[in-house]
């Protein structure tokens, strides 16, 4: 896949993908959003802030190409250029992986700021894949953000934790602490949405979740088999063939870049009556 890199000066926008609760799809979403942005021609880098667990590299399919990482750069053991991994599929996509073994406190505010400043001079979008929780790593991931994508499942514990994260975004970040700065633009991305279960009242609707969290909606990603399939092979879902989930991520990416896209709710194609009676063809 080839893309035409933009020739304008870099936008240098820092977006944190965060959630509070684990397992809701932060890394999947970071991978899909950054690949979507790169596919649209934006110079994009995605950074793994999950020191210790490190899963972005696997999701992006570059786990065997990691030599130096984010922590090496912060500690001065490697230059940023040495640690950035260029994506094999997209010209404009780079990955900054993280380390599995080092001490979590290796992420210092000064170190993170220095790396982000350097990246802002070259990239349009800098996507920060946050670890779960509200501890140091998550705080570092959100600290210098301009925008936040809060990933939420339509499920009580996930929504509650998202509310907590929204609180931190509006009180504990660089923008919150500097007088006169515009607050972080926070948006919610609802993942694992199952229209069939919503229809029978077994799952909260998009409206329910938005009413509770009171922030704008970036997108709704349907529950889809395409997600696991894509992560199995280490390809961001937007690059792994057409699917409802890929389409939903592409729409979210368009909205992120300021294009108005209608919200469409589509799930996976439901098996018809005959298919259900006589077994699946596939």
């Amino acid at each position, binding site marked *: 896949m080839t893309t035409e890199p933009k020739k304008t000066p870099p936008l240098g926008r820092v977006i944190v993908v965060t959630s509070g609760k684990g397992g809701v799809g932060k890394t999947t979403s970071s991978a899909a959003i950054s690949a979507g942005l790169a596919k649209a021609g934006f110079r994009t880098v995605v950074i793994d802030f999950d020191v210790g667990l490190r899963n972005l590299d696997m999701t992006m399919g570059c786990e065997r190409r990691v030599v130096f990482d984010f922590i090496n750069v912060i500690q001065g053991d490697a230059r940023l250029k040495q640690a950035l991994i260029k994506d094999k599929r997209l010209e404009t996509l780079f990955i900054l992986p993280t380390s599995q073994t080092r001490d979590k406190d290796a992420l210092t505010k000064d170190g993170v700021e220095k790396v982000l400043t350097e990246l802002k001079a070259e990239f349009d979008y800098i996507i920060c894949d946050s670890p779960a929780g509200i501890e140091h790593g998550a705080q570092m991931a959100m600290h210098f953000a301009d925008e936040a994508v809060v990933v939420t499942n*339509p*499920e*009580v514990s996930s*929504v*509650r934790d998202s*509310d*907590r994260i929204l*609180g*931190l975004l509006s*009180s504990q970040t660089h923008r919150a602490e500097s007088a006169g700065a515009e607050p972080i633009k926070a948006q919610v991305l609802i993942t694992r949405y199952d229209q069939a279960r*919503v229809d*029978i*009242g*077994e*799952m*909260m*609707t998009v409206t*329910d979740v938005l*009413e*509770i969290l009171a922030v704008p909606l970036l997108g709704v990603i349907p529950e889809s088999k395409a997600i696991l399939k894509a992560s199995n092979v280490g390809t961001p879902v937007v690059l792994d063939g057409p699917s409802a989930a890929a389409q939903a991520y592409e729409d979210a990416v368009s909205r992120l870049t300021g294009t108005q896209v209608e919200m469409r709710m589509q799930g996976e194609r439901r098996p018809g009556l005959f298919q259900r009676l006589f077994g699946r063809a596939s």
Partner: protein
Amino acid sequence: MNLFGFARKKPPTPSARTAKDRLQILLAHERSSSGTAEADYLPMLQRDIVAAIRKHVPIGDKDVEVRMERGDQMSSLEINIELPAAAASTTG
């Protein structure tokens, strides 16, 4: 399961509705208490109260019971102190 059970069964409240209600009540409290600061103040308050009482009356840790109840409109803080009978008569 009764074969004709489905005909008599009341439609249950959709669980999504329950989820939303529970979240709204919970978050209303969590938001009003501005995060982490609130989570710690009850034990601190309890420690201070016990210390203040101990200045005057010898009481044990088990003699003080602090309970907080959060309601929709108001919350109450209940403190029960069991004063030793002898101390109660000498000091007051």
